[in-house]
């Protein structure tokens, strides 16, 4: 029932907004539907906490602590982003970058995107997971090109083609998985791709096939995670799309794609052991972290800067999942949470900052504190948080990951430290002059909604200072599931 609500509400929202998306109240409707989804998701969370994992809809849907935590996160960030997008899109309309038709497309696709991500998280069927991931790509392609500028078209094209090709590899991996499942389970049609069934027999799955399948699945879904060297689409799509889209891409879609990788990893590990998949995740993760950090130095565009920061952080999370074990998994899950909260709040402030300055070029953005203290301080605090300054939650998770890496694979620590250090210097040296300094830019025509920014940052702070026991237990349960 809750599952139906969680999936049905955004779909309903998409349908409603396809009709009313151009009206004055569309932004409120968008936020309202997201809130309803969030409420439905909270009920689902309560139920899972109380009654444990849950199968529904002829076993087609499966909820355990691992995905329900992502469902809650997705619904929450989806709601706050909808709140943020209300004044943001009004200002964009005021600046003449959007017309009612595009606004309708934006609102409708936003809800559809949420529905696709939630379906990807909730489904028990590996094939359906693939379909939902592809649907999530398709629904965001037109959002990235919403402004119809040359650069945004290019970014959207790159996004579509690269992710399309990537996800085709994932489909091949899924086919191989199905092939192996048929061997172990016999021909059962729909049920052979159910994750729970596969998980039950993962020891009997043919190792050679699963090894090959994992390579394809990792490359395929990894493209969507933005793992280097398959990350090319990510900075462009983040920089050229509207800011709310950048926020949900970075804060949510990357997580969902990583979720798909980890689900596959659990199956594959049952068959071929954890050495090979773990090593692969660690290699890709380290490479992304280091490359992302170094590319940060070369950026001039504020959203590209933080796009590369997302690559770096997804790399760190992937690395942590590759390390495996309860502590590293715990840290990775925590990092997923704090990263998506922090990164979306940074995009909120960065969006308003570039609206204020009239450019996304960092050289043109100066003295934010002078124009609007909330935007300025929001950006500063967000940046400090993403750079892993104590007492924010990012520090806690990065600290855990570093210490685990030091204990289990000492050779990786220098790379991690270099990545963190380079990213720190790169981002801090850019953000500092943007926030402080002189400016004579006029204030924004609509007052920005910065409540989400401070709510997000407050939560990150809370996670860093004091983690509620219930939440910690929840993370631990999820970490155990991943193994």
């Amino acid at each position, binding site marked *: 029932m809750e599952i139906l609500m969680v999936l049905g509400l955004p779909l309903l929202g998409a349908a409603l907004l396809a009709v009313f998306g151009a009206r004055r109240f569309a932004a409120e409707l968008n936020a309202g539907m997201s809130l309803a989804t969030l409420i439905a998701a909270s009920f689902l969370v309560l139920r899972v906490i109380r009654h444990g994992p849950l199968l529904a809809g002829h076993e087609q849907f499966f909820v355990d602590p691992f995905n329900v935590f992502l469902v809650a996160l997705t619904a929450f960030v989806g709601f706050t982003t909808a709140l943020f997008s209300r004044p943001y899109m009004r200002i964009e309309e005021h600046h003449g970058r959007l017309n009612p038709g595009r606004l309708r497309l934006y609102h409708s696709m936003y809800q559809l995107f949420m529905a696709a991500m939630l379906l990807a998280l909730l489904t028990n069927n590996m*094939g359906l997971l693939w379909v939902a991931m592809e649907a999530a790509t398709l629904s965001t*392609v037109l959002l990235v090109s919403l402004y119809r500028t*040359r650069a945004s078209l*290019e970014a959207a*094209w790159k996004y579509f083609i690269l992710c399309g090709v990537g996800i085709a590899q994932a489909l091949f991996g*899924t086919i191989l998985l199905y092939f192996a499942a048929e061997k172990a389970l016999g021909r059962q049609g729909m049920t*052979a791709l159910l994750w729970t069934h596969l998980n039950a027999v993962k020891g009997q799955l043919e190792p050679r096939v699963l090894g090959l399948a994992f390579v394809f699945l990792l490359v395929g879904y990894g493209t969507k995670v933005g793992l280097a060297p398959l990350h090319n689409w990510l900075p462009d799509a983040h920089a050229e799309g509207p800011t709310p889209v950048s926020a949900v891409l970075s804060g949510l879609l990357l997580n969902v794609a990583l979720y798909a990788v980890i689900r596959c990893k659990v199956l594959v590990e049952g068959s071929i052991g954890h050495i090979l998949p773990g090593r692969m995740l660690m290699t890709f993760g380290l490479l992304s972290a280091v490359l992302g950090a170094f*590319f940060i130095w070369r950026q001039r565009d504020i959203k590209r800067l933080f796009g590369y920061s997302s690559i770096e952080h997804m790399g760190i999370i992937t690395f942590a999942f590759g390390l495996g074990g309860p502590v590293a998994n715990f840290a990775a899950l925590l990092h997923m949470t704090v990263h998506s909260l922090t990164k979306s709040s940074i995009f909120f402030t960065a969006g308003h900052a570039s609206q204020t300055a009239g450019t996304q070029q960092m050289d043109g953005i100066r003295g934010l504190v002078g124009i609007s203290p909330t935007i300025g301080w929001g950006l500063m605090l967000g940046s400090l948080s993403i750079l892993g300054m104590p007492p924010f939650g990012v520090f806690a998770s990065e600290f855990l990951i570093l210490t685990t890496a030091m204990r289990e694979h000492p050779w990786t620590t220098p790379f991690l430290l270099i990545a963190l250090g380079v990213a720190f210097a790169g981002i801090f040296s850019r953000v500092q002059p943007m926030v402080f300094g002189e400016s004579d830019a006029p204030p924004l025509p609509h007052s920005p909604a910065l409540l989400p920014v401070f709510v997000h940052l407050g939560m990150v702070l809370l996670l860093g200072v004091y983690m509620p026991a219930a939440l910690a237990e929840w993370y631990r349960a999820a970490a155990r599931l991943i193994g």
Partner: protein
Amino acid sequence: MHHSELIAQLLKVIAAGLLLISFAMLASRRTQQLITLFAWQGAMLFVSTCLVAYSSGLTEMYYSAGLTLLLKVIALPWILHRLIHRLGAQWDSEQLVNVPTTMMAGLALVIFAFGLAQPITSMATTITRHTLGIALAVILLAFLMMITRRKAVTQVIGFLAMENGLFFAATSATYGMPMVIELGIALDLLVGVFILGIFFFQIREQFDSLDLSNLESLKED
């Protein structure tokens, strides 16, 4: 000759035909020709799926064969033809860089694909198992085509050809995916082509051409 052996032979011939079409795509310059080749590839898939359905006695395979016929032989080529007609791009041709080198790379990919599929092939029990290598080769060749081409329409055809290869892999390794999944994939494909169609118009509006070399400004400096 034994009955199922005959079907297995025929399937191999069709698989070889698919591979041949992939190479033809790699070498052909004209957009319209590519669409025709794509339709032929779809038709071959249709026949092979029917054959597999007949030999395995699975009725749902007939549905997926019908879906292939509708989508890949009729709908998509028709949409693409309409598209390039409306874009005025039907006589477009593009300069290819060194066809023999590309073909040589394709040949290497074929060997690689067979090598990769070897362990799976040896385990499959379906009568189509030998064709898995070819399916993988078709996927990789479509990939190669997307890398070497600079025109938007051509890249999309490459993308669709890659999906054809995936479909063939699914039939050849496992007698096809479950029906719901196949419907989902087909829907995604159709929506994707529609979105790309919208895209073509947006790109042409902005750049006055469908040449993707215009789309290379977003780079690291």
